[in-house]
């Protein structure tokens, strides 16, 4: 698998660290990790160029993860980039809503590195 650039969007810096560590434990070779504390910062982080993978929380201040997903559809550099939601909001309606507006996966907190691997690896293998 090639080295990838990832964007992690979560209002908790501790959780961003854990998600990054889980990606590395899943055997994903990270060339670059960008971090954002909410959806608006996530959109701004994408102005620095495209990434190969986005992992995003839902419940965040300023701009939540669902609004981030909606606005992401208007970002040309993010076209085709897989987005996986990682959140405590595990309700069926949240899952359906996230998947309907572009998310490719959904991981409920608490999560294990193995769960991250199961959700993320197939998405990266699909990429050219």
């Amino acid at each position, binding site marked *: 698998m090639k080295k990838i650039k990832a964007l992690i969007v979560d209002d908790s810096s501790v959780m961003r660290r854990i998600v990054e560590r889980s990606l590395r434990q899943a055997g994903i070779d990270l060339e670059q990790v960008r971090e954002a504390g909410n959806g608006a910062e996530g959109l701004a982080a994408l102005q620095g160029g495209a990434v190969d993978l986005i992992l995003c929380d839902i*419940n965040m201040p300023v701009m939540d993860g669902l609004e981030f997903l909606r606005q992401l559809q208007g970002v040309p550099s993010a076209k085709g980039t897989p987005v996986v939601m990682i959140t405590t909001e595990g309700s069926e*309606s949240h899952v359906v809503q996230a998947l309907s507006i572009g998310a490719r996966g959904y991981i409920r907190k*608490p999560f294990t590195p193995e769960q991250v691997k199961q959700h993320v690896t197939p998405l990266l293998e699909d990429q050219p």
Partner: protein
Amino acid sequence: MNFDNEIAQSKPLLDSWGPMLELACREVFDIMLGCRLGQPAPDETIPLDFTAMVGLAGQLRGVLSLRCSPQAAAVMASKMLGVAVGEKDEQMWDAVGEIANMVAGNFKNKLTGMGDGCMLSVPTVITGSDYSCRSLTDSGTLEARFLFEGSPISVELQVHS
């Protein structure tokens, strides 16, 4: 199921949530911190110096709070991050707030039909013991007490009707 009426009228319903609250706590500590919670002595005093709170809104309304000592909070952050975290480190606040958030989310997802009808606030963390917290709770309180790495901790759910 109408939780509003059931919560207001049924203390047994609230009591039946006790095991789910306990399981929600144990799972979060097991999966995210890699440690098993023990049982504190019945008369053990729970320190109030560090409190993380998450609000619940919608069908289930209330506040979930996690209380512990600053020392225990630092150990939680260290275990989550895999590096030593000091008692003055801001990451300690973030880590304990996130644990409270995950416990609240894990708990509500265990209640049948509640996942869609209940939303969580972002966590708030209070330090120091010289404060009073007055919740408008009127339907009861659940508390689960544990021993975490030798320190007692408490997770409390106050429910509004």
